[in-house]
């Protein structure tokens, strides 16, 4: 590289600007990660049984039949943009890339939010042999995991944990199902899936083979488990005790920390 005084003026200016921008970027990144035990996310995280979810500048809410879209670009001033009919007995909502997975007692409805103000139905995944189920669902890469429960309002014959191939979201295909007693919410950290089996406990599955979950263990520290949020190295569980927390630094081996009532 030639000595500085021989470099044309334009190049010097360009070089200086690049250094300045890079420095600003470093400062910004440092600022957002200081004073936080957990990674920053302007919208945090909810569980798989949620009826509210935030994607970017929009809050999506489902009631029994409809999906409502609120613009929260100005977070202090939500504005209702649209209400769209989804189906019947809607239970849950889960955001995944530019899609929304909406669980009901019978099917999982998949919506595109490519235009975030105008959700468009793409398809629905119907589990074979299902009459009525309850479907909290989470998605990871090209796989969706759902718990299908038969008690109470959900009907059906056998509760299961089901895996769907969603490489083509217009045609989700069930690849696998394993019987579970009374499954509710679920969540994953990397290659481990946590499934709440109400009073049986919290089931921990290895999902390194995505379509073949293998149970590693069942945790029974709480009397019942309903939902989980894997949050960096902590697993937050909605239990009878309020919230039960586990250390999941080793995600295959959750270590009980405490419960907060």
């Amino acid at each position, binding site marked *: 590289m030639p000595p500085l005084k021989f470099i044309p003026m334009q190049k010097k200016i360009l070089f200086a600007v690049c250094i300045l921008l890079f420095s600003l970027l470093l400062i910004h990144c440092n600022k957002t990660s200081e004073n936080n035990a957990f990674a920053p996310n302007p919208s945090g995280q909810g569980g798989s049984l949620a009826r*509210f979810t935030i994607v970017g500048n929009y809050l999506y809410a489902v009631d029994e039949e409809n999906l409502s879209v609120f613009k929260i670009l100005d977070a202090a001033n939500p504005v209702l943009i649209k209400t769209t009919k989804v189906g019947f007995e809607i239970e849950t909502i889960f955001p995944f890339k530019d899609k929304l997975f909406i669980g009901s007692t019978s099917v999982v409805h998949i919506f595109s939010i490519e235009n975030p103000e105008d959700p468009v139905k793409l398809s629905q995944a119907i589990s074979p042999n299902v009459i009525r189920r309850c479907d909290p669902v989470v998605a990871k890469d090209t796989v969706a995991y759902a718990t299908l429960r038969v008690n109470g309002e959900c009907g059906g014959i056998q509760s299961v944990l089901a895996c769907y191939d969603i490489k083509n979201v217009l045609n989700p295909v069930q690849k696998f199902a394993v019987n579970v007693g009374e499954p509710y919410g679920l969540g994953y950290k990397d290659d481990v899936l946590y499934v709440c089996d109400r009073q049986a406990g919290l089931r921990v599955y290895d999902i390194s083979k995505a379509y073949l979950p293998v149970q590693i263990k069942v945790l029974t520290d709480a009397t019942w488990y309903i939902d989980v949020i894997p949050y960096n190295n902590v697993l937050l569980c909605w239990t009878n005790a309020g919230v039960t927390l586990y250390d999941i630094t080793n995600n295959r081996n959750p270590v009980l920390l405490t419960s907060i009532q």
Partner: protein
Amino acid sequence: MRKIVPFLVFLFFIVACEGNVDFFPGSNQAYVPVYAKPTDLNNIGTESARAVEKPGKIYVIGNLLLQNDLNKGVHLVDIIIPNQPRKIAFLRIPFSTEISVKNNYLYVNNFNDLLVFNITDPQNPALIKRLANVFPYHNSEYPPMSGVYFECVDKTKGIVVDWKLETVNEPKCRR
């Protein structure tokens, strides 16, 4: 024999129409709605931290954990030290079941309304906005069970917030 046959036919139709229920459904186990007055909707405020009564949905953002207390409000908990969570406050919100947060703004349902709280200071959440009647309250027409009797909802008595299994004389509704 001639008197018995019509009686048997009568019995047959009773059983066939009632399906797999008690032959004499006079008194039955049925779900009874628990009502609350709509005037309680605006009874919103911040209280000192207390134990959760009906643990509900959870949400986490930064070092703040939030848990809904079914139909009662939101507990705010500091989890900067995960093995020593510290309850900060309880935000009383009647008929609340859902939580979501963006930046320092907390969104919670209050029956059919959407509320926005500024939680920059989680010890003192401030209600800053209400969007009225934006979504219908969940589960207010029938109990969340199928194949059960229940006492029909009488909307003049208030909003249905819960269902209790009791012995009811001739329950009129079923699903």
